[in-house]
């Protein structure tokens, strides 16, 4: 009798274990991890999406959408809206795709909000310095003044009904580099969410976008690049935990004229102050925006970097649900109120200031 009981006990146990195996097998089948990395918008993008086959399909759809946005907003694609607008500067308005119109309108709004700290008509200055080209150089003051006369976001004429964009003066040009990646990220997130994706981690050339939380249920842990990593030997200056948020950084460490830096220690970097025509020098080496919309984060990280910590953080503090981090040349970290209690430097080269 006793023996039979033990046997029955083991039989039940085995069945239970088998069922467990089956169930766990099913779960891992439906909740797969889909990874893809690809080049678009002059940078590398990495997608990690969790979910079943429909999540993978949505991931590919989102990637196609990004490539479509690139074809409309690139400064180099021959038939892009941006190239057409720049060619027709001072001549005639150009009919553009709805998404291009939306992004330019948004950029002009941010131009007004920041009093010109972000200006998409910066292109003549960008081309003059050529920081991201093969032959970057420090131009003369006269050259800078000449090109600066062409920089003015108030001279971008938008016609909402006809969906046309017109640059008033010949020689003007727009560059959506500071904002198009953010729009692309928002579109990718929209497509993934519509397909029911509840967990994803996207990286669009350094702009990090998260959907939901990590599959373990904890917030995503996003390290923020140490702007002086070659000095400190550390990859991050802080780590933030986020869900359903985007983390976008700007800084003088990404692209700058290496030859000049080696000789003089001066960093002529790629983020220009549209009011001076020189790389922004507002006392910051890096800054970060954390919020839900990527286009906002993209625009505001440039604005914060150009405005500097006092003016920039004040502007961000006045907006809803947007947090900002500013790192000064003295490696001091300033943040908006919402981050003050929670932010901890991940290496002791940096110091939080209240």
């Amino acid at each position, binding site marked *: 009798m006793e023996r039979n009981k033990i046997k029955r006990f083991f039989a039940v146990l085995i069945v239970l274990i088998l069922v467990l195996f089956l169930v766990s097998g099913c779960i891992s089948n439906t909740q797969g991890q889909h990874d893809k990395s*690809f080049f678009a918008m002059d940078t590398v993008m990495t997608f990690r999406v969790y979910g079943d086959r429909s999540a993978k399909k949505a991931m590919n759809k989102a990637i196609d959408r990004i490539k479509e946005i690139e074809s409309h907003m690139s400064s180099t694609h021959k038939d892009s809206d941006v190239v057409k607008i720049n060619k027709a500067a001072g001549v005639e308005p150009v009919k553009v795709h709805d998404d291009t119109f939306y992004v330019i309108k948004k950029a002009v709004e941010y131009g007004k909000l920041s009093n010109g700290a972000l200006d998409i008509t910066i292109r003549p200055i960008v081309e003059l310095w050529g920081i991201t080209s093969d032959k970057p150089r420090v131009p003369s003051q006269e050259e800078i003044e000449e090109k600066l006369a062409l920089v003015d976001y108030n001279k971008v004429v938008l016609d909402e009904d006809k969906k046309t964009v017109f640059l008033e003066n010949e020689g003007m040009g727009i560059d959506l580099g500071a904002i198009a990646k953010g729009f692309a990220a928002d579109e990718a997130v929209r497509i993934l969410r519509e397909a029911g994706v509840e967990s994803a981690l996207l990286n669009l050339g350094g702009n990090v976008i998260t959907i939901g939380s990590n599959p373990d249920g904890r917030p995503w842990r*996003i390290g*923020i690049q140490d702007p002086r*990593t070659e000095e400190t030997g550390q990859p991050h200056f802080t780590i933030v935990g986020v869900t359903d948020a985007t983390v976008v950084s700007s800084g003088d460490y990404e692209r700058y004229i290496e030859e000049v830096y080696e000789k003089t220690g001066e960093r002529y970097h790629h983020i220009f102050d549209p009011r001076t025509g020189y790389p922004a020098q507002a006392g910051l080496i890096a800054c970060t925006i954390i919020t839900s919309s990527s286009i906002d984060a993209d625009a505001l990280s440039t604005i914060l970097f150009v405005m500097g910590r006092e003016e920039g953080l004040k502007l961000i503090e006045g907006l809803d649900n947007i947090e900002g981090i500013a790192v000064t040349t003295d490696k001091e970290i300033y943040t908006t109120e919402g981050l003050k209690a929670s932010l901890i430097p991940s290496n002791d080269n940096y110091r939080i200031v209240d």
Partner: protein
Amino acid sequence: MKPKIGDIFVYVFILVLIGLSFLGLKTMGSNRNNLLVQIELDGEVIDSVEMWQEEQEGELKEIRVDTGQGRYNIVGISSQGVSVTEANCPDKLCVRSPVIREPGQSIVCIPHKLVVRIIGESQRDNAVDDTAS
């Protein structure tokens, strides 16, 4: 007392389960220690190399990656980490990129569409899912 077939089956099954769980532990353990250097060209993984362990300190392993039309990058792996030691791309940003050593970190050569990525589980407490830069 003579053991019955059913009993033997149960014993064998339990032994197999114990064995399997050890195997599981072992593979999980080795994943932790062995980081992989993954080399991708235009989004496709073209090479995957184990990161060097401590006993190979001081040595440098170099992998030449031909990215087409005479273009190349040389990926260097040492106990210090991974870097691009040489390349004939126009901007040389990959060569100037800092050494990477943690999972999730990567070096990118945009003109050659090359990504060098470290894959695996981090052993550090402050491991991150991704880096905003």
